[in-house]
Every structure is written in C-alpha cells, then in structure tokens.
C-alpha cells in the first residue's frame, strides 16, 4: 500500500495512523454516537492540517501531496480511517474537491476553505426514491437575470447538515450541470436522515426557488459528464479503500480469536471446517485489496480503463465484504451480535459502502455495458 522507498510517505502514513488511533478510536466513535454528533469540526480542522484535504488539490490552488500521487495518498488515508471506522467528512469533501479542481474558476475561495477544513462540502447527487443515476437529475436549474433558480429535492447527502456548501447536480434546461450552493441560501431546507452507520449522518435537502449567482456553476456544460465521472470514481475508490481498511482490522482480530478461543480443548482455528472458512476470508480479503489497488492506480493515472477498474472493484468489494463481516460475526459466536462488541460498528460502515454510489448489481451492469461497448468499438 505505502511506498516503502519514500520516507515522506511513511511519515505521512504514520502521522495519520497515530492521529486516527488517538483521536478517532472506536470508543470515541461510541461517544460521538451517544452524544448524537457526527464529528467534531475542530477535529476535522486538525485532520485537514495533517494534509488530508490537500491531496487532490494542485499546489497553485493551495494543495499538494507527499508522494506526488494524491489519489493514492488519499486512498491510503481512507484505508487507515477504515481500520477504526473513523468519523468525519473525508469522503464528501474529497468528492467535491475532485470536481472543483477540474473547473476551479470562481471557486478558488471555496477550495481554500475546504483545504483548511473550515468549511465542509458534500455532493448532492441522489434524489428521493431513486437509485444511483448521477446523470439523470430531477432537480431543475432555470436561468434568471442574475444566474439560476434551483427547484427540487436531493437526499442521502452525506454530512448534509454539517455542510456549508453543496455541489448540486441539476437539469439545466436539458443539459446536466453542477452548481455550488451555500446551505444558508434562502429556500434551502435541510432535513436530517438516519443511516445504519453509528455516526455518519445524511440529509434530505429541499431547494425551493433558490436563487444563485451565475458564478455558482461548476464547469462548462460539455464538461459535466467528465466531472461527474471523476467525482464518482473518487467517491467509489474511497469506499473500497475504507472497506479494505475495515476488513484488515476485522480479520486481524477475528483470526486472533481463532487462536485464543478454545472449544473441546482445542483452538477454534484448528478445526478444519473453521480453518477453511478463515482461508476463504483471507482469499477474499486479498482479492478485495488487489481489485482496490488496481482501481486506485487506474484512477490516479487517469487511465481510459479507470471506470472499468472502479466498477470491478466496487462490485467485488461490495458483494464480498458484507458476507465476510457476517462470517466474522458467526466465528465469534453470540458475542458477535451484541452491542458491546465492536463488530457491528464495522458492519454498519461496510453496508453503507456497499450500497451507496452504486450497488454491486449496478456496477455489474456497468461492467457489462463497458465490455459490450469495447467490443462494438
């Protein structure tokens, strides 16, 4: 995962890791949940100071990465965050930044405030009652004298209630366009939504005649498909990387349990039927890691095969990770289904990552379509 030859990357990795262990532990997660808080804004500012928010941002816009490969570094942060199911808006902020840095005109200040961690942003792409279809928005943007008027409803907006600004996908007189909309604009109403995760919060956002300036538009109309594609890929590899981090942590303690727990005078892991189950977990874990690493590399290199590689990873990781978590719960026995045990904290996040930004089934369809397209091309 990390480039062992680069001491700066190693330092970045170890600083990130110790920050997460100290400030985003599983017990901290439970405290936040008990207090009904998604994350502490001041904690996020310190995470931003460590460099998490600058990885996708070029130096001229105030960003930079240690290895020179920001996508890879960001995936590493997501994986480490997965080890402790960390809270925080890493995914939505990174996704918005991935789009803005491709079309930064008029948005330099927003980019800067996202990099410092002072402002949180999120991608408003889902709509009520509809599954993953980023290029098919029902929210409308209508031209006015000074800019646009937005009408419609978005939902499943991660950290929507904590965001200062939303990147909204809308149908602008027949063309799909994205707009940067402050959440305190008149006509924006944010309604919290419950998720299966212990801390990640979502929101339904109503846009009722929201007037925005012409400068709120992100990119040219012809550019939108590429921006949405890039944002989707970033969101999806972050999910895969987070799940790899989760699986790494869960497998480590579940394998240890196989050595420590004794039944009928023998360690659990010495029974062939359980040993084979453990072997499968190891196989699927390495396969998840292999698929994720390949996807991260293709996205980092902006390869023409990036979309295929991401959908392959998202399908495979999404299909296997939840059942791997259920297997780990089964291997733990009754303790595995208690609130007290940490397994459910990991399972909750894995479910979220499985289903958001395209289910395995959605990505299987995409993989088939890309294969058929390549054949007829």
């Amino acid at each position: 995962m990390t480039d062992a030859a680069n001491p700066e990357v190693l330092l970045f990795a170890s600083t990130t890791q110790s920050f997460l262990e100290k400030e985003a532990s599983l017990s901290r997660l439970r405290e936040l949940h008990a207090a009904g808080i998604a994350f502490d804004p001041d904690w996020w500012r310190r995470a931003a100071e460590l460099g998490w928010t600058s990885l996708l941002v070029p130096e001229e816009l105030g960003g930079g990465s240690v290895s020179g490969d920001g996508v890879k570094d960001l995936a590493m942060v997501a994986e480490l965050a997965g080890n402790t199911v960390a809270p925080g808006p890493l995914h939505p902020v990174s996704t918005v930044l991935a789009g803005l840095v491709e079309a930064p005109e008029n948005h330099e200040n927003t980019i800067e405030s996202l990099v410092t961690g002072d402002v949180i942003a999120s991608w408003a792409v889902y709509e009520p009652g509809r599954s993953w279809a980023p290029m098919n928005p029902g929210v409308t943007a209508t031209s006015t004298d000074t800019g646009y008027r937005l009408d419609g409803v978005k939902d499943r907006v991660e950290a929507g209630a904590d965001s200062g600004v939303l990147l909204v996908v809308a149908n602008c007189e027949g063309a799909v366009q994205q707009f940067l909309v402050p959440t305190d604009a008149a006509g924006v109403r944010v309604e919290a939504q419950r998720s299966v995760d212990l801390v990640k919060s979502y929101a339904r956002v109503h846009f009722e005649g929201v007037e925005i300036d012409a400068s709120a538009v992100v990119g040219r109309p012809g550019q939108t498909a590429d921006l949405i594609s890039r944002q989707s890929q970033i969101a999806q590899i972050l999910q895969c990387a987070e799940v790899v981090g989760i699986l790494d942590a869960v497998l480590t303690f579940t394998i240890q349990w196989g050595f420590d727990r004794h039944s009928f005078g023998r360690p659990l892991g010495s029974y062939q039927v359980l040993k084979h189950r453990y072997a499968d977990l190891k196989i699927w874990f390495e396969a998840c890691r292999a698929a994720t690493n390949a996807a991260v590399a293709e996205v980092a290199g902006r390869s023409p095969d990036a979309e295929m590689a991401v959908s392959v990873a998202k399908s495979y990781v999404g299909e296997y990770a939840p059942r791997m978590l259920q297997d780990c719960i089964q291997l733990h026995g009754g303790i595995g289904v208690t609130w007290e045990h940490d397994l459910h904290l990991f399972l909750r996040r894995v479910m979220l990552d499985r289903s958001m930004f395209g289910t395995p089934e959605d990505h299987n369809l995409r993989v088939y379509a890309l294969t058929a397209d390549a054949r007829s091309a």
Partner: protein
Amino acid sequence: MTDTTTAPATTESVAEFAARARAWLAENMPRIDPESPPESDRGEEAPWLRARELQKTLYDGGFAGICFPREYGGLGLPIEYQRAFDEESKTYEMPVILNTPTFTICAATILDTGSEEQKKEHISGALRGDEVLVQLLSEPSGGSDLAGVITRADRAGDKWVINGAKTWSTSAFAADYGLMLARTDWDMPKHEGLTMFLVPINSPGITLRRIKQVNGSVEFCEEFFDNLELGDDAVVGEVNEGWHVASRQLYHERRAVGGGSEFASGIGAEGKTDVPIDWVELLSATGQADNERARERAGRAIVHRAVQERLIDHVYHGVLDGSLPPAAGSIIRITHAETHQVGFDTAVALTGDSAVVDGDDDLIRFGERYLSRQTAALGGGTTEIARNIIGERVLGFPREPAADRGVPFKQVKRNKS
C-alpha cells in the same frame, strides 16, 4: 526458487533479445489467431507429435529453455527474457502443452534435485523436443493424502522392483519418462520411507490405461506396475528422501497453476475451449443482449475474471516483496477454480434449456462444459488441501490431529477393501 536465473549468460539486452526473437519467429514459426488457437487435445497423439516438432524448431533456433541453465541445453537468462519472448510469440503456434508438467514441474524438479547425469539427459532431452515428462504421484487408493502412497519399490540384488498403481497422470501415454513416488521403507513414518524414481514409460512391467472423463477427454492415464525393474540410476535425490523431491514438484506445480513459472514458454490457450467465455457473444446468441437481468449476471462473471487477473499480479508481487508468504500461491489456485465455477454457473443460467438439448446453435457446449465444472477444483491438488495450506501456512492455525503422524507406515490404517 531454483538457481537458474542468477547469472545472465549474455550481454544482449531484453529489447535486443525480443527484436531478434521477433525476426526469428516470423521466419520460422507458424502464425495463428490467438482468439481462435489450433485445437490441442491432450488426449490425442497428434498434438504431442506436433508439440515435439515445434519444440525442436525452437531448440534449433536457439529459443528453447530461456530460463534453464546453459549446461543443460537452456539459455540461462532471467525471467524478463522469457516474458519478452512470451509477448513476441503470442501470435505464433507454440508447443504450449509441453509447459506443464514437462518444463514447469518435471524438468524444474530434476534441476532442483536430480543427479548431474539426469539433468544432462532429461532437461536437454525435453528442451530438444525429444522427451515428454510426466508426474506419477496420485494413486487409486488416495489423492490428497499424497505421502500415503502404497506403490512399493523393493530391493532385489542391485535392482529395485516396483509393484502398485498410479493414476491421474496427465498424458502419460505420450510421455517418455515419469517421476514416480514409491514406498521403499515401511518401518518408517509416512513421509520418511519414500523414494522418487525416474521411470521410462515404455518399460516392460508397466501397463497403461486411459481414463475417460465426463467430457470425453482421455488425456489422463492410469498405470499398473507388475515387477517393473529399475536400477539405482533411476533414483532422483536420495533413497527415502522422496518426499523432499515430491515437495519440490508440488511447489513448482502451484507456481505453474498461478502463471508464475519462469520455465513456461508461450502463454497462449491450448484450444478454443481454453479461451475464456465471450459474454457479449453469448447474450447475443441467446437473444438477451438487452435483458437487464442477463447483463447483470454476465457482468458479475466478467468482474470475477477481472479480479482473478488482478489477484494473480497482487499475489505474485506480494510473495516477491515478502508481504505474503510463499504458501500464499495457493490463494490463486483456489480463486482460479472459483472463477471457472462462476463462469460455468453463469453460462448455464444464461443459456437455460438451450444448454441441455441441442438446438443446432452449439449452445449445448455450455451444458457439456458444466458437467466438468469441478475439474478446476480437483486437478493439481484439491481446493480443500489448498485451504488447509492457507489456514496452516499462511494464517498459522494448528493442524488437525493426525492418526498417522510418527507411526511406522505399516501400522497406519488404510482403505477398507
């Protein structure tokens, strides 16, 4: 690892070597369409004669045994040269059926454990196209418990006398020599009384029978030994150290199955049934090109195949950089089988009744392939044994108690007859 790839015997760069190979291949080897390679049924005689002929051409042209040492007829070059040659030779007919087991398992093991004479005779014999080598390991009495073989080699004067039976030997009918594991000391525990012999297949005292598989293939053979006589020169390694030799074979076999052997030359398919399923064509042939359910299932099969390719690469580099132990090669062995199974299951689901009654559209071939679904999970060691290896040698879990450990083999309970 073997010590063959250490000192390059040439100052020619990989690129120069590849350029020379490109020119030579164009002059000397037959061109093929890699999407539709010539059928090489391992159960027929003709493909073996053809492979020997092609191998001879490679040898005469100076492109045989790229990673085998020069003193045994090879070129003594590092794996990068072999990979470059594989790339150049993709569109040419290559003797790919000689790769496994002849080169990747048998010749590699002889190189590790054989005598100087055996290496000189058999490795160069194979590289010249004169010798096909096979493994005589499994027995009718048991497969996964390989060290429990009961074929016996008894001392009679200065000879060894072999009695017993071997099975599942790939293409033994076409072979010249086989590496045969026999029990030479019944008072020792299971692993300690074994010896490996190099047996001429056409010896008196060997009766060979073809095994017909469900798909009609007759590539595998069964051999019966009735007082077969061998000299001391047939022993590979030391007497009663046969398990060490067999372990090298298993090691080389797992690397070969994962596509990680430097001794394989040519990477093409062995025939049309070896080419991966074309899902777009299958959906079009079954009128389901626009059926969302069908597209989703086919997409999932494509995902599994893509992940297998990435996993092969991930495990190869993981073992190389030490982040995974060498035993992790068994991961690929299992996922290889499971990827096949996802493919076969999906094809049966998508072809439906067309796969069971022949409607003149050749879709019945998917039904027929399904009948042999488990082959990939059995051949080259079962997936159960591979899961034991991952559980015990990768994760470190203790072995199950074994009734035959540390016990003289003659006291070990065997099959009820």
